[in-house]
């Protein structure tokens, strides 16, 4: 069976027409004075989903999260949680909890008091609070730090306290605002997997806001790419990467080569594209573009093969010259200047220690790719 990306997903309520949406943004608009932070946005998130809002700063992703938490009210539109309209419900009455980017730990309280704070507010009896706090401390492996104050903890420990505090109340939805933004790279990677495990273990719905595409790709079931207050695409990480629906998304996530061109003709099971600079490209997934229309052909660097001779069986092969090479250890990145002037980026996995076909600066070289290696973008 063919599938996009390398992971088979068994959890996919978004493909099930009968699945009940859990969180619904229904034509939500948020304006701050003249500035429109979120523009007529609709979005559906399902129960137990790990959902990521990905975008550059100022794209409205944090505003979306803050509206869900209740710190901002939409200017127009509705937000539904489990069928209930959240309008007018203050943050302290919403069944969602948030983990803040700054962690927002209460500096005058110990770790255990911080974690117990939310439980106290809902009037849980003392012994139950103690039990729950102990459970949470165990969950984030901070048992021996219970009596410490936040300033006596390292960054990673603070992050885990913030996490424990936000899940202690067993919220229906956990909102995470740049949860790993303040950690260093190594710790961030470890914590990504910890968060995923935690989400599985607790069976909660996670909505995470991040500007880090790798973080979103690693953790999320689905990603919404946002730009200027609008959702550009909502899809699984593999779909976002392998089947972007717009130039913006293709460009935003990972590296990409773009060929400006026009659809020359559709045949039975292929589409022929004429590049603006003359390159002829044949693809088998261009059916969405009308013949004669201007399009962009987008292809990821690792889908392009570089060789010194023209591969005999290649459907698409373009000739050029090696313009730049970079050896990165696990892979080698080539920049090839095609004869029509366009520069193509290609990356080759160094699957073996020796290579049969070494290339260097200014060598003549061919780039080739399969007809299903790229995507045709109409917008």
């Amino acid at each position, binding site marked *: 069976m063919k599938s996009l990306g390398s992971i088979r997903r068994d959890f996919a309520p978004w493909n099930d027409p009968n699945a009940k949406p859990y969180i619904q943004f229904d034509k939500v608009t948020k304006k701050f004075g003249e500035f429109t932070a979120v523009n007529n946005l609709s979005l559906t998130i399902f129960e137990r989903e790990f959902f990521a809002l990905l975008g550059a700063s100022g794209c409205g992703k944090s505003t979306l999260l803050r509206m869900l938490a209740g710190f901002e009210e939409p200017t127009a539109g509705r937000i539904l949680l489990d069928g209930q309209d959240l309008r007018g419900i203050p943050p302290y009455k919403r069944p969602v909890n*948030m983990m803040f980017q700054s962690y927002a730990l209460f500096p005058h309280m110990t770790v255990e008091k911080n974690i117990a704070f939310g439980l106290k507010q809902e009037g849980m009896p003392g012994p139950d609070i103690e039990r729950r706090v102990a459970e949470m401390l165990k969950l984030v492996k901070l048992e021996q730090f219970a009596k410490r104050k936040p*300033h006596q903890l390292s960054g990673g420990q603070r992050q885990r306290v913030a996490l424990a505090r936000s899940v202690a109340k067993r919220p229906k939805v956990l909102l995470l605002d740049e949860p790993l933004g303040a950690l260093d790279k190594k710790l961030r990677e470890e914590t990504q997997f910890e968060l995923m495990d935690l989400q599985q273990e607790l069976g909660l719905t996670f909505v995470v806001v991040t500007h880090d595409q790798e973080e979103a790709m690693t953790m999320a079931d689905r990603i919404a790419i946002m730009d200027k207050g609008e959702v550009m695409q909502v899809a699984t990480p593999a779909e976002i990467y392998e089947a972007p629906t717009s130039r913006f998304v293709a460009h935003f996530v990972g590296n990409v080569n773009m060929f400006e061109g026009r659809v020359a003709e559709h045949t039975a099971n292929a589409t022929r594209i004429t590049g603006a600079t003359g390159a002829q490209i044949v693809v088998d997934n261009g059916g969405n573009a009308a013949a004669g229309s201007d399009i962009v052909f987008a292809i990821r660097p690792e889908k392009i093969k570089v060789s010194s001779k023209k591969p005999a069986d290649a459907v698409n092969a373009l000739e050029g010259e090696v313009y730049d090479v970079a050896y990165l250890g696990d892979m080698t990145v080539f920049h090839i200047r095609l004869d029509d002037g366009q520069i193509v980026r290609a990356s080759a996995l160094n699957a073996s220690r020796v290579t049969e076909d070494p290339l260097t600066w200014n060598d003549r070289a061919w780039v080739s790719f399969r007809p299903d290696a790229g995507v045709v973008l109409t917008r």
Partner: protein
Amino acid sequence: MNSTWSRFNITSIALGFAFLYLPIVLLIVFSFNESKLVTVWGGFSTKWYVSLFHNQGLMDATWVTARVGVISATVATVLGTLAAITLTRYTRFRGRVLFSGMVFAPLVMPEVITGLSLLLLFVAVGLDRGFFTVTLAHITFTMCFVAVVVQSRLVSFDRSLEEAAMDLGAPPVKTFFQITLPVILPAIISGWMLAFTLSLDDLVIASFSSGPGATTLPMKIYSQVRLGVTPEINAACTILIAVVAVGVIIASIANKRREIQRQLDEQAAQRG
């Protein structure tokens, strides 16, 4: 940089400190003077301290000053804190610039003007001058100092702390008392102490707004000095200096210890 004790350095330090402290040293020395004449040394004695405590007028004035100080500092702290919160939090209301200017204007207003205008007000509304009016006047002029101190803390206050508390289920009032207030408490205490000190120290405004039976210590000392400096006044001032010095020393030791504790904590955190 050259850090040796050159003759020039030593001389400048000696001169500088002499300039600052010679008057105070003289005052302290002469408070232990046996002689009644302030400028003639007649041997060591503590009799002026004993007689000080039998001087009913001075003791009454001290009591008035303490009560005025505590009450005015407390009320000024409450009002000043509220003003500071409003000015930092509600940044979008009309006339905010005017309002904040008006809160802080008394900081630079000459005391004579503040005193005189208060006096005119009290006379106009027919308020008998006394303990109540001095306290009211002190609240008025110390409030803005509290507002400045608290506001500077609130500017750096992380609002997400309050959002986190509300997110965890605490309504706004509870959030204020359980999170905001404890976090800004050190600034509020500093504000209170500043207000208290200013109130203790004030002569001009108290002179305008006070009446019979509510003479504050600075007023009492000033009026006695006009009749001639007595060693008793020297003794009273020496006690005041001692109280202030002990206060400052305790505060700085506490500060230093907190600093050291914080460094230890941070090291502990690094080690995990």
